[in-house]
Each structure stands twice: as C-alpha cells, then as structure tokens.
C-alpha cells in the first residue's frame, strides 16, 4: 500500500479579493480534511462555517504556541514550533492563565469605553486626511492613513507621551514595511519592545488615565507582564486594523455603486464594516488550535496533539451561512461573520477596530468625494504571502 500524501494548505489566490479556490472545493466536499504541514506534521484543515465555529468554541482545543505546527513556510523556510508564550502574551495561553490576563483588560475594552475614545479617533483620522490633502494627489494611502491611524490609537490606549509618538510611529511603521531590510525591521522591533517595557516602568511612578497605567496599578501584574500585554495590543491591533483600512478602501473603490450608496447614507457604514470583515477576511491563513484529547469533529477523529487550521476566509464564504457568499454587498447582514474569530479568544479589540473603521471610511470618502485609484488595480502590490492580507501600498488620486 502506498501512503497518500495529504495536501498542504492552499494559499494561491486566483483573484486579489477571493480566497484560494481549492478552499471552496474542500468546504463543499470535505469540510474537515487532512492537512500536511511543512514540518512533516499531519493535522487537519477546517473550512465550513459551522465546524470552524464549533472548534473555536470547544475548550478541548488549545491555543498554546508550543503545541502548534505552522501551516505555511516563511520565505521558503519551515517555521519551527514556537516557545511557550512569554508572561502576559495571553493570546497563546489557555484557561486559567488566559482568563486571568484577559479579564484584567476586558473592562477597558467595553463597548462604552471604546465609544468614549471616539472623539480622539475622529481627531486622529481628520489630521491624517488633512495630511494627505497637503501632500496632494496622487498619494499613497497606506503610509499616510492606513498605518498611522491605528498606531496612534494604540498610543492613546497605552498612554504614549505626545513627544514620543513620532519615534514610536516610525518604528512601528518600519516593522510592517516591505522596503526595509530585514535587520532594520528587527532593530525596530527591539526598539519598540524596549520602549513599551520602559513605558510600563514609567507608569509605575507617573500613572496616567491610560490602559497601561491601569494594568500597572492593578497590583496583580509584574512590569514584564504589563509590557508584554501592551506589546500584544500593538501586535494584534496595528497590522490588522491598518490592513482592513487599506484593503477595505480598495474593495469599496472597486464597487462604485455600493460606495455611492454609502456616501449617500453614511449610516450604512456599520453594516459596510461587518461586510468588509466577512468578505475580505484578512487573517488569510486562518488560525490554529491543538486537540488536547481525542475529539470528534464533523465525523472525523482528531487525535490528541493534532494541529487544526480553521480557515476564517473559507468559513466567511460558506454558502450554507451566507447567501451569494462571493458577492460583496453592504446591504446584507454579515452578522455572525468570523472575521474576529470566535470562542474565548475572540478579538478583544473588536469594538475599537469597528470604531476606527467606521470613522475612517466615512471621513475618507467625505473628505475626498472623488477618491479613485491612481494606478490600474493589477499594479497594486498585494500582501500575498503575509499572514495578514491587504495591500502594501495604495496610490490614490483626488481633486
């Protein structure tokens, strides 16, 4: 008997806006299917909405980094299994550690608290649109709007002093840039890590009314834990929101009738944002979990120790959950999409991300009523092999 080789995770898109077509074929035939990992591990790939939700809600599946195998290579290299999460990096922990850290932050991320940040978000957005106008048409939306807005919002959360924001901005921007050599990216990352650690220490002596000060003075955390929680907010909240702003703008510009409808009725923006989260699914390779014991999923036995990849893009295009799933439609109810994940790790920053996108898109299209692409869509560099999908740059024109 010959051993059949299981397929690897499909990652090649046939259009810039749709997930790889093989994912749809799998979802229809084998919503949970065997998957070969680059390091030789044999695990599973889940592509249907119902099963992705089921696994993410099931506490027999772990999100600990040290148990997981990576589904993709990076720069042709196999990614080794990561060490256990550092103290405070709760995204890669399970209960009860995860619960303890997350509960210290959830009070700060409530719908109400996030709405209180609204005026600051509006101001940051307005400043950057004015900056784009000053630079003149054409201008690249990514470094002038999509990247700096979420980074400055995180400065607000963390309480980064104003005079230090430019430096912080420069380094966080570098961390996400393609044109910067690898060792410069690593240098920027180290500076940001040191900066946040130092900031946490300073908040012990001079607290403000920011989140970092709140954590420091909770009396339950070491400075190292606070610093890592701050870094997690930056890592989880910057690149994601930035790419939703960039890719979301491109999707809207490619759907002129819907954009016109949104311009005519800005209250459609809430729904538009949910539909963008569903349709664009920037967490393009999905998220992973590891079975802590043998678990049956969709009629298959997932053995303890197997890594399961949950394809958020495939689940968000599941025709059993969303009618005409491949159509972008700002009038549909996209409620229940998995763009922020599901289960106890569901995005902690989602109410903030929603506000940034709602304010961002409405202000952008109000300020520049005739915003358009400055280059043909084929020339826009897509983040094809990055964990978070989006555009590397987005040259736009306006009058």
């Amino acid at each position, binding site marked *: 008997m010959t051993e059949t080789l299981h397929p690897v995770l499909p990652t090649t898109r046939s259009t810039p806006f749709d997930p790889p077509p093989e994912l749809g074929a799998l979802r229809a035939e084998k919503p949970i299917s065997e998957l070969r990992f680059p390091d030789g591990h044999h695990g599973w790939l889940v592509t249907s909405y119902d099963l992705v939700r089921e696994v*993410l*809600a099931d506490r027999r599946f772990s999100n600990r980094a040290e148990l997981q195998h990576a589904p993709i290579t990076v720069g042709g290299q196999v990614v080794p299994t990561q060490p256990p999460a550092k103290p405070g990096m709760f995204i890669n922990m399970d209960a009860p550690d995860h619960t303890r850290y*997350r*509960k*210290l*932050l*959830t*009070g*700060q*991320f*409530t*719908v*109400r608290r996030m709405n209180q940040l609204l005026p600051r978000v509006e101001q940051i957005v307005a400043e950057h649109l004015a900056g784009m106008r000053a630079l003149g048409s054409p201008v690249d939306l990514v470094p002038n709007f999509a990247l700096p807005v979420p980074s400055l919002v995180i400065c607000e959360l963390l309480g980064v002093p104003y005079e230090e924001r430019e430096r912080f901005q420069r380094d966080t921007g570098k961390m996400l840039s393609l044109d910067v050599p690898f060792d410069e990216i690593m240098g920027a990352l180290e500076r940001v890590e040191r900066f946040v650690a130092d900031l946490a220490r300073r908040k012990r002596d001079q607290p403000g009314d920011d989140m970092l000060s709140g954590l420091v003075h909770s009396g339950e955390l070491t400075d190292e834990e606070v610093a890592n929680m701050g870094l997690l907010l930056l890592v989880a909240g910057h690149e994601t929101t930035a790419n939703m702003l960039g890719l979301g703008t491109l999707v809207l510009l490619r759907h002129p009738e819907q954009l016109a409808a949104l311009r005519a009725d800005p209250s459609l923006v809430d729904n538009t944002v949910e539909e963008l989260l569903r349709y664009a699914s920037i967490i393009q390779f999905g998220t992973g979990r590891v079975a802590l014991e043998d678990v049956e999923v969709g009629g298959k036995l997932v053995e303890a120790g197997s890594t399961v990849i949950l394809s958020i893009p495939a689940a968000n295009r599941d025709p059993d959950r969303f009618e005409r799933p491949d159509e972008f439609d700002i009038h549909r109810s996209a*409620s*229940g999409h998995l763009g*922020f*994940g*599901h*289960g*106890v*790790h*569901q*995005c*902690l920053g*989602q*109410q903030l991300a929603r506000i940034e996108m709602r304010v961002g898109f409405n202000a952008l299209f109000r300020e520049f009523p005739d915003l358009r692409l400055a280059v043909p869509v084929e020339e826009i560099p897509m983040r094809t092999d990055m964990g978070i999908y989006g555009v590397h740059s987005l040259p736009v024109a306006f009058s």
Partner: protein
Amino acid sequence: MKVEVDKERCAGAGMCALTDPEVFDQDEADGTVVLLDPSPSGEHQRKAREAAHLCPAGAIRVVE
C-alpha cells in the same frame, strides 16, 4: 422568554451589548455581561436570540 447569562463563561467580547444595549450591558470593572432585562419583549426577543448566537463564549442562554 427568559434570558440567562453566565458571568463565569463570559469573555467580555461585548457582542451582546453591541447587539442590544437595552438588554445587555458590560460591567465597568471587568467587562463581563450585565443582564439589564431578563425577560425582554417585542423586538428585543429577536435581538436576545441573536446575541445568544453571537456570544463567542456561549455565556447567554435563551429559554423560550
């Protein structure tokens, strides 16, 4: 209809307060769910069902 919430399971994601702020709120201190109206009526019944479906942590139960 009766709505029940389990603060122990709640992950503080705020989907409930976003879906129907008249039925659900979030605790100022730890973000966990606060039930404002355990027996909603009219339009709020549909929204409570939706919130139960959306809650990522399975912390909301609707008894019809």
